[in-house]
Each structure stands twice: as structure tokens, then as C-alpha cells.
């Protein structure tokens, strides 16, 4: 079963930027958006680029290596077939909490 994990202080992530963090052995990227937060897998499915280092717009991130772009809400690649996993993220009392998507629950149990 998937659980909520406290990962960082909200202020650790500047507006419209991303940072990565390991949760249960799984590296995810956390983004601060004008309308809230988003969390996804940190690796671009194309060549493993660090999505947390990508340019973030209101609702998408662009991989810094080869400019694959992903919607941060759905995880769908824009203009391509790939997807990235999207995880739940919440800010509470200045702290960021993450719950991995269902498909990752077994990973967490194993860790």
C-alpha cells in the first residue's frame, strides 16, 4: 500500500523550478507551479534526462537534454507517445508530502 512521505520544506523548491528527491529508492522530481505542486518520475523516458532540471511552464516541463515535453498533470508527452508517472504531492504546514503512484507501491514495500 502506498504511503505519504515527507520529503522537504516547501521553500526548498523555488517558483517554477524543480528538484529531485529519492522516495523509497525511487527518484522523483518535484515542481513548484503557480497553481500548486506537481511530482513525477525524475527520469525522461527518452534518454534518462533529469526532468527536475527542465524549464517549467504553467503546466509542463521540458527535458533539458533533448526537449521532450511532458504535461505535469497527466504525465503525457506533448507531441509524442511517451508518458511519465505522476505522483501525488501536497504542501502542509510548509512541508511537502509525496505519495507514490499505485504502480510504485510494491517498490516502496520492497525498500
Amino acid at each position: 500500500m502506498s504511503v505519504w512521505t515527507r520529503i522537504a520544506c516547501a521553500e526548498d523548491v523555488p517558483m517554477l523550478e524543480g528538484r529531485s528527491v529519492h522516495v523509497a529508492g525511487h527518484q522523483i522530481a518535484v515542481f513548484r507551479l503557480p497553481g500548486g505542486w506537481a511530482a513525477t518520475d525524475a527520469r525522461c523516458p527518452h534518454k534518462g534526462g533529469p526532468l527536475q532540471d527542465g524549464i517549467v511552464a504553467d503546466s509542463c516541463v521540458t527535458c533539458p537534454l533533448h526537449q521532450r515535453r511532458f504535461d505535469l498533470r497527466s504525465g503525457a508527452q506533448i507531441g509524442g507517445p511517451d508518458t511519465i508517472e505522476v505522483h501525488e504531492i501536497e504542501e502542509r504546514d510548509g512541508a511537502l508530502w509525496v505519495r507514490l503512484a499505485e504502480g510504485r507501491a510494491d517498490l516502496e514495500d520492497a525498500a
Partner: protein
Amino acid sequence: MFSTHGILVVGGGIAGQAVCEAVRARDPHVPLTLVCGEDHLPYDRVRLGALLDGGSVEDLRLRPSDWYEDQRVMVLTGQRVRALDPDAGTATLDDGATVLHYDRVVLCTGSDALVPPLEGSALPGVEVFRDPADCAAILGAARSAGHAAVIGGGLLGLEAAYALAKLGTPTSVIHLVDRLMERQLDAPAAALLAPAIAGLGVDVRLQHATTTVLAGPDGRAAGLQFADGSRLACDLVVVAVGIRPHVGLARDCGLTVERGVVVDDHLVTSHPRVLAVGECAQHRGVVHGIVAPIQDQARVAADTLVAPDRAVAYPGSIPTAKLKVMGVDLVTAGAAEGEREVVVADAAAGTYRKLVTAPDGTVLGAVLLGDARGAELLMDAVRTGRVSEDPLGLLAEASQATAAELPDAAQVCNCNGVCKGEIVAAIRERGLGSTQEVVNVTRAGAGCGSCKPVVTELLQIERAGAAEEPAYLCPCRKQTREDIAALVREKGITRVSELSEACGAGRDCGACKPGLSYLIEERQAATFRQERHAKFINDRVHANIQHDGTFSVVPRIRGGVVTSDELRRFADVADKYELPMIKITGGQRIDLLGVRKEQLPAVWEDLGMPSGYAYAKAVRTVKTCVGTQFCRFGLGDAITVGIDLESAMEGLHTPHKVKAAVTGCPRNCAEAYVKDIGLVAIENGWEIYVGGAAGASVRKGDLLATVETAEEAQRLALVYLQYYREHGEHLERTYGFQERLGLEAIQAVVLDPEQQAALLERFAIAKAACDPDPWRERREPVHPKQFAELDSDPEGLDLVAMAAAGVEAPR
């Protein structure tokens, strides 16, 4: 007659895609399924060679993936149809379990590479050239190959040889007959390819029949044995002698098959439910292997399928192609040889233009090599069988023809089968304003791109000479550089998020944010406020991101001159941080590779040198030769002038990177002729070259001016730099800038004393405002986590730190 089963298209090549497009253009609703045997969405196989030149299959896609969704085309990739039962209306896939139902099925199974029965053709190191997997194998082998041999001197073989030669692999082309491309070219035209081929260093062996691929001691291909007894040592063999229609599926289900699947004038095979289109189809005894006829067939097939009332018989196609062979333009249409031929050739210029007619003047064919002017007009004359009283006059007329004179039915884009009338109608009806828009809407120019100049010409005619709509800095919101500059000035905008709030630019995809950031910085040098979210990662952490997410560190080494103490520090840093590589760069600097983001501040601290801006769209380096300080040929003090110039320019951001050089004499050891800004010492003076490049584009710089003193040369370099900073489009290198504006227009500004003074004043303001060393952020980061991930070790030396593990739910 259709039930819900709809149409099944077997084969995801150019033909399968063309059928889907033609069906959807006629019927937006009929269920349409496309089965692609390869793991890719349909791509442009004609441009396969691009994969050997660093391209990816995605770059070659005929349509983006959302097109299939939008058009409700169900696509199965990586799956092949194993068996077809036309009577039952079923197709069984490779897995043996999945069965697809259809009302009509279109075979677009294309062809396989033809491999002649050579002894040794199955050895490792022998490849064909047909799909992306072949390209990957060729690329892998070419890297280590001492010599490559391409068997086949036709179009496909020359394409492979061209790509191999460009990779730097010594390459031979082996051809059976006495001239290259004998199907498309006559002997004189084929001979004109010789200089281009020689220029690429490719060795051509005509009239060589390969009998055996010889094996080396390691069991891999090691050479070729020819019928005349001679041999050629090579460790990569690419077989590109032709194609063989892929007809197994058709034959297995009992369709009439000869060389290809036999179809009638409606593209229907011997079974009324089954059609065939493209390289697998044989119509009136002809199997076509190029794109233009396949487009014709797809349209007829679509009529047969969904618009039978208006279906007209397919009379066959006259093959036409516009392409490049060994980098030379080639247009072929219809017959290459015939009873009556007129030729205009210029051996010195390497051009050859030929028109083939019947004795009565009916145009039967054309070959244009090295000079493709009037190609559309001549292709149209061949297709329509125009009768010309004066074939030589027609050739001359074609070389002067503009797009205005083309008939509406003339095909402009051979890749996607788009004629002039469709392009003009789209421009008029949809009010298109730029070439790119026309390409997107009509698909003309979306293939090989060779017809884009004609598309641009048509657009200009339709717009009555009005300039094309400009390039958008923010394409999502259609904002040009000028629009945004005006807004920045009017509202006194000083940062990107203010601008985004004002006009929306940068909010949708974010791709333009670095461009917006540059624009505000350039316009508001004194008041600009940086926002790191608007910058590419390189500019957030002042280092160049590498493929594995690590960074490279290149300090400022002005003029390429370094001290022994600095070299010691490089060595110490590399040892201390166990860096995997120290690399001398092409810009006479030293690159430390494999630095993790967290290590950057410490590495900079230990180096104690300023940032070289090697990661930014900014002034990079000034290369120098030793000049009069040491060289016995030197005419100018290149080192001093180069160091001064680098000091004057460093720290400034520019529309794209700027590389410079100062060289002490025209021997040009510092390569100043091919830099964005290059100073060359001559007898009693200096030359200033601008707009040179030696990267993906190679261009000798334009001579901006010749002056008497080094001071004057430096001053002009700075004036030019500032003019480029103010007028270059974001991500436009100086070579593009030079060609867009033209040397004379640039000289008119840059050499004008009044404008010089104004440009230098703005340059001085920008220089005063710029940051000469962003690496000082190691001590004063703009954010506590500027160089860290959320779970990085604060020392930056240990990546293994893991997240704190809270397990309670937040609510």
C-alpha cells in the same frame, strides 16, 4: 456497404500513411486501422540516411503521434499481420491470437532489401540499408570500421555511401555496370557526379561484380572478392542493390502475384476486398519505388474505398523525383533517354540539364543535375505530355520560370503530393502568412524540404511581395521579438514573469523563456532582474549539462593563454573530485567533465578562476595564435589583441553563442575566417571578418572592414557585437544574421560613425551591468538549493543521502 469493421491498412510506411491520409480526407468517420510492422509510427524512409547523420526516427515522422488520435486512426506498432483471410474479412497478427476484422484491406507492405546470392553475405559486418535497425547496425560498425564498401551504385547505394563518407569512414562504392545511377542518369550526367564524389573522398569501382564476401580470422566480413580476381579489404559491407516487393502475405492468401501484387486500375487485387498500394503493388506491369506515384495510387485507392462514385481509373504514374545525390541536386522525371534529346551542360560548373522528347516534341523526360531551376515546370511538362515545338527553348524557359508561371496542377511537393493549386488555395482561404504555416497546413515541404523555396515563392506572390510574417519569439502566443520589445519598453518591464503576466508569452510551453529573458536583459540592461526559472539549466548553475546529467566546467582562459599555476590547480581539482576526463576544447580552453551539480561550488572554489561562460548563449572565447610574440611569420600581436578583445566582450549574453579569434597573419592558425568575429593581421593593418562558422554550418566570414590599427579593429568588433546583440533573433547565429540582413546593410550601420558611437554607448552600459563571473554564486547562491537536490548532502561530496522517511499521512 460498410459495416463497423471499416478499413484495415497493412503496413506503416509512406504508402500506408498516404492511404490513411487520403481516406480521411474523403471520409472522416470510416473506422481506420493501421498496422505497422516496425516499432515506429510511419516515418519518411526516403530520408533514412539522416539516421546515419545523428537524426532520430522521431525526426523523420510523417505525422506527430497526436495526429492519429485526432484523426481517429487506430495504430498498432511493432505488429505484423501473419495471415489474411479476405473471404472471412479477417487478419491474424503475429501473436497468433489477435484477429482484426475489416470490410476492405489495403496492402502497403512495401519491400525488403534485395540481397543477391553472394557467398558470405550472411557474415557479421554485412548490412542492408532499409530501416532504422539497419542504420543503427551500420552506425555501430562504421565507428570502428577501417574501410566500408557499399555494393550498389544506384540511388540507395550512393545515399549510404554519402552518409558513411560524412561520418568520416573511408568508403568504396562497388557497381556492376559502367556508370552510376544508370536508371536515372545517362553517361555524361553520371560523369558529372565524379567531382562531388571525389570531394567526399569516396572511391568508385565501376564494372565490378562482387562474387564473395571474404571472412576474416574473427569470422566477420573482411573484404570483397570480385569476378575479375581483384579484391578489396573492408570491414563493413553495405548491400544496397535494390528492393524486392514484399508479397508473401498476398501470395499466402491466394492473390495473383507476379513481381508485385497485381492490381487493376482501381488498385484492387485479384480479390475484390483487397487493394494494394505502393512498392508491393504491380500496376500494368510496373512496380513503383518512389514517393510521387505512391501518392497518386493512394488517392485512387481512397476513392475506390470510400468515394466509389467519383473513382476514376488510375492510368499509371510518370515517376518524378527531386532529390540530392552526394550533395548534388538531382531532378528526374520520366525517361532519361529517348529518340530526341536536347542537353545544356556546363562541365565546369557541374550542371547538366536535359529534355527528352518524342520526335513530334511530346515531352517524355527530363534530367536536371546540379541546377534544378524550373524543376516543377519541367516535371509538369513530363507528367502532362506537353508538346514542345522547341525543346531547347523549353529548357531555357524553365531556367527562368518562377512559381507564378506554374500551372495549378503542377506538383510542388513530391514527397506529399501537393500541387500548386492546393497551396495557393490554402494561402488564400486560410490567410496563411509564413512558410512554416503553409508547410504545416498543406504538408508541402514537410518531407525532404527541397520544395520549401517554391512554397515561399508562392507565398510571396500571394502576399503581393509583402514580407512574410516574422518568426515568433513566443510561438504559442504569436508574439514577435518586436512585439515583446515594444511591450518591455512601454511598460518598463524588468523581469520575465512580469512580461508573462502582461502578454502570456512564456506561460504555455516555456520554451521561449530564455529568449524572453535575453530580450529584457538586452533592452533593460541597467534594470533587468534575473529569474532563474526563465533560464535553461546551464544558466541556472553556470555549467554545461551532459548526457548523464553531470556538468562540464570550463574556466575563462583568455586568448588560450594559461599559467603553470593554473594548470596545477586543474590537475589538483581533477584528482580531488576524481573527475573522469580533462579535455582540451576546440576554443583553446580546458574542460573538466563529469562534475555533479552538487560539486560545482567546491570545484569552482578550488580552481579559483572565473567562469568561461562555456554553457551560455554568450561570448565564449577568443582563440589566438602566438602572433608576433613568437611566430616568425607573425604580422600582428594576436595574443595581446585577443586577450584584450576577450576581456572587453566577456560576460555579455548574446542571441546565440559568439566565438571569436585573433590571428597574427593570413595563415589563419587561429581560424579567424570561420568565427563569428575574426580579426586577421595583415601587412600594415587588420581585417575584421564577421559571420563565419565552422560547426554544423561551415561559412567563411564576410570581410566587414580593413583598418590600420588593432585598436580600431577591436572597436569595430565591439560595434558589430552590439549590433548583433540588438538585432539578432534569439538562437540565430551570426552566420544566419549576416545572411538575413546582408553584409551591405550591416556595414551601412556598423561603419557609420554616428551609429557606431550610439552602439558603443549601449555596449558600455550592457558591459557595466553584466556579471563577469557568475561562479561567485558559489559563495552567495541565489537560493539555498541552487546547486542541490532535495536530498543532496550539503557537502556535495556524497550523493547517497536519502530522503527522510516520514510515514504518517498528512491528514
